[in-house]
């Protein structure tokens, strides 16, 4: 399984339209401060679902879920992503 953090950063790089490279982000960097627009966050959400073959439940379709690499990793963790590697 691909490293979860790397995949998240690659998705952000491809879909986040951030002000700088997503590959050098710190885990807790606020992506909204770095230019993650609402419509881009939707594309990030859809790309993460695609990459990890999961579906975010309604309870996770919130702005905070996509605020940082760490928050996305945590949300994906609740869906079982990355657990096997733990």
């Amino acid at each position, binding site marked *: 399984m691909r490293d979860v953090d790397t995949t998240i950063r690659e998705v952000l790089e491809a879909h986040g339209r951030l002000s700088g490279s997503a590959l050098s982000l710190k885990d807790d960097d606020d992506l909204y401060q770095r230019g993650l*627009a*609402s*419509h881009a*966050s*939707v594309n990030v*959400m*859809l790309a993460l679902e695609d990459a990890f073959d999961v579906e*975010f439940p*309604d309870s996770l*379709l*919130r*702005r905070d879920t*996509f605020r940082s690499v760490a928050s996305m990793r945590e949300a994906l963790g609740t869906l079982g992503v990355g657990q096997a590697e733990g």
Partner: protein
Amino acid sequence: MTSSEDFRRELLESGLLVDGGVRGLYHRSFAFEAIARGVEGYVSAAGRDDGPRQLYFPPITTRATLEGSGYLASFPDLVGAVSSFSGAERELPEVLRRAAEGGAWEELLTPTEVALCSAACHPLYPLLVDESLPVEGTLFETQACCFRHEPSDDPARMQSFRQHEFVYVGSPDGALAHRDTWLARGASLLAALGLDVATVVANDPFFGRAGQLLAAGQREKELKYEIVAPISSDTPGAISSANFHEDHFGVAFDLSLDDASVAHTACIGFGLERISLALLHRHGLLVEAWPDEVRASLGLGAPRGAEATS
């Protein structure tokens, strides 16, 4: 307590509105139209001192506007695109045969370059691509007959209705100030007509699961406010909405300010039919019996008791 069913029946029985044959389609009596036009003049006058550039848009816009505005992506279930027959004469009988049999004749039509207008500010943005847009902002007043495909028996939810808007194009701070100034001004204007108004944080009905995320973001950032009042029942509904679009339309339509920054936009939209209905709900279906000051504000004839002197 009145339900929207009761109110709809009263409106139709009084002749103020006429059932257009499908849910959400209504023809307007001249009496109803006089109210709507009174509201139009009333809100327009409130923006006069700002000297906005004024444009009436037709009920259709370019297909490119519908796509470029993001409306197609975010509200695909509400849009209307126009198709027409572009086949040869020999292909027409099949169209008519299907129509006669209740079949899907529209499938034989070809999409045109136009779509029904979704919001009264959308046709504005493509016009501004080559314009010099000062950082301190430019004000516009627009109106369009808008279409939303959401058939309903509630007269407050018409498929075809007019929005009267005041739009700002400029800096982020200016856009936010425009939204907030007009939200307060709009609430005050509508309250002065006797309506029981409140302002609430709101979200657009974005489509699908992606839409849930967009709606949650819109609420958290408080980008959209609605002025609500009872419209067709005692439950309040939106009669006006004030929106900060951030750089959504600026990016979508490539609008640059004179300092090369991306334009930010904001608008307030007044729903002329919904405000008219709210007034009828509040003051009764007999316009002649409305309070004098409300009639005067809307230019609806002489107040009660003032007889013609001729």
